[in-house]
C-alpha cells in the first residue's frame, strides 16, 4: 500500500472502500505495515496513516532551488541612526506620534544617517499610504532601501528607474489611482501630466475633469494656459470654474488681460486717493472668466463682483508702489488685493499688504521671505493673542518657527489656558488647534511650556497633555540625532 492509495481510500471512507493492506515485505517499513490488524479497517487506516505520515515527515527531502540567487545589496556609505532613534521610529509608526514622522525623517536626513534595515519595511509601508513622506523616506533608506523597494510592487514609488506603466494606469486605473498618478506626475513632469490629461479630456466624466484640474494646481505655469483657456468653455460649470481659478493665478494669461480691462475703471487712482467703484452688473464674458454672480450670505452683490474682478486681475496692472496703494485703499480693495497677492504669489504686494493690520489672508505668509513671515506672525501673536484668525495665520506660517515666535505663542497659550471660569469663545477655537501648534513650535520651548501650562483647569487637561507630549517627544528626538 502506498501513501497516495491510502489517502484516496481515506477520503471516500472505509464504508465505501475497505483498505487493501498489501505490504511489500523485506523492508523495515513493510514489516511494520504488515503487522497491522486488517480486522479493524478504521484502526488499520489510522495506524497506517500514522506510520506512513511519520515515515514521510522524518525522511523529508528538501527541494533544490533552481532560480538565480538574488543580487546582493551594495554596502552603505552613510551610518545608521542609533538604536534609540530607531526605537523612536517604532513609536511613531505605532500610531500616536505619527504627525511627527515627517520632521523626524528630515532630522535623520539632515544628520546624514540612515534608517536601519529591519525598520525599512515599516517605514516604506507608512510612506506608501502617506505620499508626503516619500521624498524624505527615499533620502534615509540608503542602498538597502533602494535594493528592497523594487521587490514589492506596492513600493514601486521608491524603486526609482523601474517606473510604473503610466499610460496603462491612466487608461484602466480606478478613479483614485488615476488621481494619485496625476498628482505625482504633476510634481515631477507637469508637461507630460497635462498631455496625459489632454489625451483623454473629451471622454472624461465631468467630476473627473474638475478633479484633474484641481490637481493641476501643482506645477502650474503659463504652459498650461492654452489648455485652461479652452476649458473655460466646458459644458459643466464646476469644470469652467476650476479652470478659471487656476488662470487667476497666472498674471500673464489672456484671462488676466481681460480682467485688467474690467478692473481699471473700478479702481480710480489719483495722487491723493484710491477709490473703489462698485460695478452695476456683470456680463456673460465676465462670468465665463470665473466670476460667480450670486454673493455669499451677508455680502452685497456689487461688492462681491468688485472683489472677484480685482482679485482675478494681475497685480502688475497697478503700476504705483504697492505700499502707497495699500495705504490709500479701503478695506474692500485691500482684501481683494490680498487674495490676488496670495494667488499670484507676489512678494512685493504680499509684504505691503501684511503691513496693513486688517488684512486676514493667511496664505500671504507663504508669498513672503521666511524671516519676514515669522516676524509678521510674531507681531500678530503679541498684538492680538491666539484668536481664531491668528491661529489660522500661524498654521500657514512656514517652518521653522524659531524660539522667538514659539516663545510668544507659548506665552499667550499660558494666558488662555490658565484663565479660570467658563471657557470663552477664543478657548473653544484654540482647543482643537493645539496639536497643530504642538507639531510646529520650536521644541526648545518644551520646558517653558510645561511650566506655563502646569496649572490648567480640567477642561483643558486632555489637549494640553497631548500638546506637551508632542513638544517633549520632538525635543527628545532631536537629542538622539547629531545635528
Amino acid at each position, binding site marked *: 500500500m502506498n501513501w497516495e492509495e491510502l489517502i484516496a481510500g*481515506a477520503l471516500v471512507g472505509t464504508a465505501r472502500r475497505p483498505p487493501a493492506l498489501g505490504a511489500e515485505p523485506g523492508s523495515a517499513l513493510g514489516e511494520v505495515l504488515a503487522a497491522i490488524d486488517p480486522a479493524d479497517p478504521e484502526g488499520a487506516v489510522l495506524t497506517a496513516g500514522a506510520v506512513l505520515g*511519520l515515515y514521510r515527515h522524518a525522511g523529508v527531502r528538501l527541494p533544490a532551488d*533552481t532560480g538565480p540567487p538574488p543580487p546582493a545589496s551594495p554596502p552603505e556609505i552613510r551610518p545608521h541612526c542609533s538604536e534609540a532613534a530607531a526605537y523612536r521610529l517604532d513609536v511613531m509608526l505605532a500610531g500616536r506620534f505619527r504627525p511627527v514622522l515627517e520632521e523626524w525623517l528630515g532630522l535623520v536626513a539632515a544628520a546624514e544617517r540612515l534608517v536601519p534595515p529591519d525598520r525599512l519595511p515599516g517605514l516604506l509601508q507608512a510612506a506608501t499610504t502617506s505620499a508626503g513622506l516619500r521624498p524624505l523616506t527615499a533620502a534615509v533608506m540608503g542602498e538597502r532601501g533602494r535594493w528592497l523597494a523594487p521587490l514589492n510592487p506596492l513600493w514601486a514609488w521608491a524603486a526609482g528607474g523601474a517606473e510604473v506603466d503610466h499610460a496603462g494606469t491612466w487608461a484602466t486605473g480606478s478613479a483614485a489611482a488615476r488621481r494619485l498618478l496625476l498628482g505625482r506626475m504633476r510634481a515631477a513632469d507637469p508637461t507630460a501630466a497635462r498631455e496625459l490629461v489632454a489625451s483623454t479630456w473629451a471622454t472624461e466624466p465631468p467630476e473627473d475633469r474638475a478633479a484633474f484640474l484641481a490637481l493641476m494646481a501643482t506645477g502650474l505655469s503659463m504652459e498650461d494656459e492654452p489648455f485652461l483657456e479652452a476649458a473655460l468653455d466646458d459644458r459643466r460649470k464646476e469644470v469652467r470654474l476650476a479652470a478659471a481659478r487656476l488662470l487667476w493665478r497666472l498674471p500673464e494669461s489672456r484671462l488676466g488681460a481681460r480682467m485688467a480691462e474690467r478692473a481699471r475703471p473700478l479702481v480710480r487712482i489719483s495722487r491723493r486717493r484710491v477709490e473703489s467703484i462698485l460695478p452695476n452688473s456683470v456680463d456673460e464674458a465676465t462670468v465665463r472668466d470665473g466670476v460667480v454672480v450670486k454673493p455669499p450670505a451677508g455680502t452685497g452683490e456689487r461688492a462681491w463682483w468688485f472683489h472677484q474682478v480685482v482679485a482675478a486681475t494681475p497685480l502688475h496692472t497697478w503700476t504705483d508702489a504697492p505700499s502707497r496703494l495699500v495705504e490709500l485703499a479701503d478695506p474692500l480693495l485691500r482684501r481683494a488685493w490680498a487674495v490676488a497677492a496670495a494667488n499670484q504669489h507676489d512678494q512685493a504686494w504680499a509684504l505691503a499688504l501684511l503691513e496693513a493690520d486688517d488684512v486676514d489672508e493667511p496664505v500671504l505668509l507663504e508669498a513672503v521671505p521666511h524671516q519676514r513671515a515669522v516676524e509678521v506672525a510674531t507681531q500678530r501673536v503679541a498684538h492680538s493673542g491666539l484668536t481664531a484668525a491668528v491661529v489660522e495665520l500661524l498654521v500657514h506660517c512656514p517652518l521653522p518657527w524659531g524660539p522667538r515666535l514659539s516663545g510668544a505663542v507659548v506665552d499667550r497659550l499660558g494666558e488662555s489656558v490658565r484663565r479660570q471660569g467658563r471657557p470663552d469663545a477664543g478657548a473653544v477655537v484654540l482647543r482643537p488647534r493645539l496639536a497643530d501648534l504642538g507639531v510646529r513650535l520650536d521644541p526648545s520651548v518644551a520646558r517653558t511650556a510645561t511650566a506655563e501650562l502646569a496649572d490648567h483647569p480640567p477642561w483643558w487637561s486632555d489637549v494640553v497633555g497631548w500638546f506637551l507630549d508632542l513638544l517633549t517627544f520632538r525635543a527628545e528626538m532631536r537629542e538622539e540625532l547629531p545635528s
Partner: protein
Amino acid sequence: MPTWTADQVASLAPDSSSIAAAREVAGPRLWSSTGHDGRAAWGQCRRYLAAVDLVDPAFSCTCPSRKVPCKHALGLLMLWTSSPEVVRPASAPPWVEAWLAARAKRAARAPAGTEKKPVDPEARARRMAGRAARIGAGLEELDLWLSDLVRHGLASAQGRPFHYWDDVAARMVDAQAPGVGSQVRRMASIVRSGDGWPGRLLAHAGRLHLLVEAWSRLDTLPPETQADLRTAVGWSWTSEEVLAAGPALADRWQVVARTVAEEERFRIQRTWLVGTATGRTALILDFVPVGAPLPAELVAGTVVDADLAFYPGAWPQRALVASVRGEPDSMSEWLGSPTLEAALAGHAAALAANPWLDRLPMVVADVVPVARESGWRARDSSGTAVDLRVDEHGWWTLAAVSGGRPVGLAGEWQDGALRPLSVWADRRLVALA
C-alpha cells in the same frame, strides 16, 4: 543589581497596546523624583507615583488603570533602561519603603497559611490513577470519533462546521486531556490549509490514534515514553517533578528566538535556547492569562550561563531554568548548522524517539531568503531550499535585514515548512514574529 533591556521590559506588558502607551510616557521630561536602589525603581509621572520591585517583579502606581503593570510602571522601566542617567541611584523615598515593607510582610505571611499540608502519598497515587482513568475514557471516546471520521471519509470533514471539532476538543478538556483538545482543534485548521490537506489530516489523525493505543497500555511502556504521553495529553508537570526528574544541564545558552502567541484566554511564550558547549536545544514555555505579564528573564540575542532542567521524555526538549549565574552577555556568534540538510538531520531521530513531537527547532547559518513563484523560501549554500511560513511583515523584515546576503535563521520546523522566528545578521538578532 539587575539590568533590564527594552525587550525584557516590553515583554512585561499585559498587551501590545500597553507597550505603545508606555513608550509614550517613557520620556525623561514627563518624570520627576525618579531613582532606584537596586531593589526598586520609582518616580512621579505627572501626578502619579509609580514604583517597580526589581528583584521580585511587582508594580505599584497611583493611577486608576486596572492593568498590571500600568503604562506608568512600564514607562518608568523603559525610561530606566533607555536613559539610566535620568533614573539615578538614590535612597528610596518613604512611600516606596512603605510599599516594599508591606510586600515583604505579605510574602512572609503567605507561605505560613499554605504550606505544611502533609502530602499523603497514597491519596496522591489515587488521584493520579483517577486522572489516568478519566483520560483513558476520554481517549476511547476520541478513538470512536476518529473511526467514524475514517469510515465516512475525510472528504466529509471538509463541510463540517467548527463546532464539529470544537465539541470533541471540549470533551477532551473535560476528560483532563487539554493537549489532545488542542490537537483536535488543529485538525479543523488543517482541513482548511489548502493543497495536500487530506494527507496532513490523515497523518494527524493517525498520530492521535497512536496516542490512544499507547495510553491503553501505558504501564507496559518505558518510563520516557510514559512521560512523553503525559506531556502529549497535556497533563502538566510541576516544577518539583521536573527538577526531581534528573540533573540539570549547565551550559552557556544562547537565546536564539522568542515568540508570543495568544490562544484561548492564554498567552504562550516560546523561547528557544541553544547550548554553546553541548549544542543541545531547549524550549522554555510560559503560559499566562491574557492581561498578565510574561516572564522576561530570557532575552533574545543574549547568552546566559544557566542550569536547565529538562522535562522527562525520550527526546527531552522542553526545559525550565533551574538557576542562572551572572549577567547575560550579548550573543557574538551564530551556531546554526551549515546547511539545511544538516539542520534537519536530527529530526528523524527525534521523531523516532517521540512521534508526538509537533514542533522541532531549526537553527541554520548562511541561508539567503528568496522569493519564488511557489512562495518565500530560504536557500542554503548547497542550493537546497526550505519553504518559509511567515507573514508579510516577517518576510519583508527578513529580506531587508538580509539584503540578498546569507544570514542565520532560527525557527520552528512544523508540517514540512520552517517558521522563521529570528534572523542573525551583522552580529545582531532581529525578531521576525
